[in-house]
Structures are given as structure tokens and as C-alpha cells.
């Protein structure tokens, strides 16, 4: 998802009996659905895992602006351009809500950003794919933001208060993203045969990476079991992916598009779609930094940050000067 393969540092899930009194009290609060707040006692593993998860989530929002930024100057109309700009601005906002949430855990904004820029921290695999046509703006909004909603709605109920509250804000804004994407797809599919083909091509390229976003099956993963016990992961990767497929296939059918999966079929008994094997070697490759755009994304991000340094410095110099003048005026009075 926006946070993939998050390490918890746990080798096995400890029972309440194995825990020290402080940790037992913590786990019982989590089990009762009581929110953990920034100043509350928490196990070191919980804190570190949340830092990894929330910062990765934040980085995904920030880097997620880049594939879409590619189309701002080439949007087909002023209306589409305004909408795309508003969506990208939301992504920046989502990143900022999440950076604020992660800072409550005792890391600074600059440390977290430095980890992104050095390549130490990860962001979602999905943003390492190129946006080759305008239809990709549609496919991303529809499938990628659609998947993000499926992942983020449960997180509104996660155990860590600041993260849960950030997710509530994000979710309120996210359905605009999914709808504007589907609206782009609708317009293309109701257009010329070439436009419809453009939409089909975008679906062909984004479908599998969108399914990979949820991460490999984590039914056997100790990390996922630990995150579930801490209630910072509420559904398995496979459950969330199934939900995404179940809701997206009928939406693709309405558009008159074909999902690029010959094994896709509806199972009347389970009332779910069955789908083909996912190419996990591709996913692992992208995660390791060898996707189509990994280097370009990071380079662009670091360049934007470095290019803005003189401006950030100027704002600080101005603030310092105002502060000094105020102090002098008080002395003179």
C-alpha cells in the first residue's frame, strides 16, 4: 500500500503473560480500542514501526505528486488542469498531515525528509511507474487513489491517535481524487476510438502495479501479525486487494474496458472475483530501486528540495530580522 513491507522488529507475537506490566497495560488498552496518544507510554517496537509506517506513507504522498506533475502543463483543458492542480495540492497536504503525525513520535521533520532524500526510507512502489499519456491521470485517480481509500479507511480506526486523525482528514479528501480519475476515464471512453484506446492502454499498464500496491500475501508474516496485534494494520494485504478487485472490475466493465487478466472470473459461490498470478519479482525489483522511474523520482524530489533552500533560508532570515527589530523597538520604548 502506501506503506509496504513495514518491519516491526518482532520475531514472534508475545502473549499478555510474556509481557512486562507496562506493556501488558498498553496491549490491553489497544485491545479495548482505546487510542494511544503521543505522550502515553508505548513499546519501543510500536514507536519505531509507526515511524517507519507513517513516514513511508507521508513520502508516498509527496513523491506521488511527481507522476501527476508531469501532466499539469499538458492537461487537455483549463478545467482539467485546475482539477489536477487541486489534486496534487491535496497530496502535498496529505504528506504534511502525516509528517506532523510522525513527528509526535519523537523524530524531526528534517530527519524524516533526510531519510527520504538519501534513499533510506521507502515510498510506495506504484509511484515508480511512468505516466505516458493523459489517460494515466485517469487510471491513477481511479485505481491508485481508489486502492488508497480501501487501505486508509480502516486506518481511521487504528490505535495511534495522531495517525488515525490524519487518516480521517485524508479520507475526506480522497474520494474527490478517485472520482476525478474515473471522470477522466469516462470522458475518454465516451470519446473517439483513439481516446478509448488510450484509456485501455492506461488500464493495461496500471492494473497490475495497482494490485501489487497492497504488497505480497502476508498471511504468514510475523511483521503483519505484530502490526495487527498493535492495531496499526486492520486487514491483510490479500483481503484489501480482493476488495479492490471486486469493486474495480464492474467499474472497468461500465467503461467498456477489458481488465488485462485472462484468468479473471467471477466466482458465484464466493461472490468474489478470482484473478491471475501477480508477478512479485517485478514488485521486489521496484522496491529495491530498479523500477522504471525510481532514480528519476528521487532525483527530481531532491532537486526540488535543494532548489528551494535559498527561499527557506530567506524566510528564516526575514523572521530573525523581524524578531530583532521587535526586540530593539521594545528596548527603545
Amino acid at each position, binding site marked *: 500500500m502506501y506503506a509496504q513491507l513495514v518491519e516491526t522488529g518482532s520475531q514472534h507475537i508475545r502473549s499478555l503473560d510474556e509481557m512486562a506490566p507496562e506493556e501488558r497495560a498498553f496491549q490491553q488498552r489497544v485491545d479495548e480500542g482505546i487510542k494511544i*496518544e503521543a*505522550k*502515553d507510554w508505548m513499546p519501543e517496537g510500536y514507536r519505531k514501526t509507526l515511524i517507519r509506517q507513517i513516514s513511508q506513507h507521508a513520502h508516498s504522498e509527496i513523491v506521488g505528486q511527481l507522476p501527476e506533475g508531469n501532466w499539469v502543463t499538458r492537461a487537455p483543458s483549463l478545467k482539467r488542469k485546475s482539477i489536477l492542480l*487541486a489534486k496534487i*495540492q*491535496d497530496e502535498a*497536504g496529505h504528506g*504534511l*498531515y502525516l509528517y*506532523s503525525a510522525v*513527528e509526535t513520535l519523537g523524530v*524531526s*521533520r*528534517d530527519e524524516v525528509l533526510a531519510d527520504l532524500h538519501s534513499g533510506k526510507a521507502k515510498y510506495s512502489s506504484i509511484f515508480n511507474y511512468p505516466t505516458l499519456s493523459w489517460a494515466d491521470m485517469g487510471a491513477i485517480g481511479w485505481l491508485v487513489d481508489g486502492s488508497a481509500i480501501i487501505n486508509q479507511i480502516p486506518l481511521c480506526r487504528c490505535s495511534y491517535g495522531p495517525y488515525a*486523525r*490524519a487518516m480521517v*482528514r485524508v479520507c475526506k*479528501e480522497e474520494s474527490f481524487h478517485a472520482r476525478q480519475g474515473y471522470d477522466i476515464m469516462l470522458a475518454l471512453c465516451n470519446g473517439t476510438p483513439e481516446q478509448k484506446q488510450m484509456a485501455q492502454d492506461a488500464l493495461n499498464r496500471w492494473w497490475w502495479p495497482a494490485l501489487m500496491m497492497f504488497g505480497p500475501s502476508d498471511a504468514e508474516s510475523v511483521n503483519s501479525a505484530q502490526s495487527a496485534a498493535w492495531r496499526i494494520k486492520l486487514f491483510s494485504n490479500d483481503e484489501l486487494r480482493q476488495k479492490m478487485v471486486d469493486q474495480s472490475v464492474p467499474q472497468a466493465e461500465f467503461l467498456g474496458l477489458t481488465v488485462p487478466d485472462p484468468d479473471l472470473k467471477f466466482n458465484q459461490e464466493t461472490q468474489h472475483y478470482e484473478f491471475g498470478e501477480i508477478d512479485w519479482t517485478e514488485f521486489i525489483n521496484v522496491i529495491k530501486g530498479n523500477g522504471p522511474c525510481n532514480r528519476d523520482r528521487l532525483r527530481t524530489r531532491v532537486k526540488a528540495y535543494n532548489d528551494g*533552500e535559498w527561499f*527557506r*533560508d530567506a*524566510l*528564516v532570515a*526575514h*523572521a530573525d530580522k*523581524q*524578531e530583532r527589530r521587535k526586540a530593539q523597538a521594545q528596548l527603545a520604548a
Partner: protein
Amino acid sequence: MSKEWPLWEVFIRSQHGLAHKHVGSLHAPDAEMAVNNARDVYTRRNEGISIWVVKAADITASSPDDKSALFEPSNSKVYRHPTFFPMPEEVKNL
């Protein structure tokens, strides 16, 4: 590398005449920029008509460890709630 911008807590009053409510935080070099940034980060959809920003470092918060001692005095005074007093059914408007 310049120094890290201070953290500001942001409070917004919505259009419905309610009190300013904490909505989140952000970094900014000074109060003026904090208000500008708060406008962009927290009011993109008409969420407010007034913004307060306060340096996070200037906020004094109660400690979660003192929770029981701090709030116990009010816990034991159930008679402060109107439902503490049963009223005869025949009596109206109370």
C-alpha cells in the same frame, strides 16, 4: 543547511460560530508564514473563517500519567449531572 522551522499548532473556527478547534500542526519560520501555510494546508475546502496559530513549544499540556489524579475530583461528583435527580413523571418542564 539552515535551522529547522519551529512547529506551530493550528486552530480553526468554522463558519458555524463554534470555538476555534485544533486541527493539526505545521512548520513555519514565523507566525505570519504559519497563518499562510495553515490557510493552504487546513482550509482548502472552506473549513474555516478564522485561524489561530500557536508555537507548539508555548503550549503547556497535562501529563497522561496524572490523568487519574487530575480528573478524579469530577468523577466522584455525579450530582453535577441533571440525570442524577430522578423527577416524578407527572412533573413537566424540568
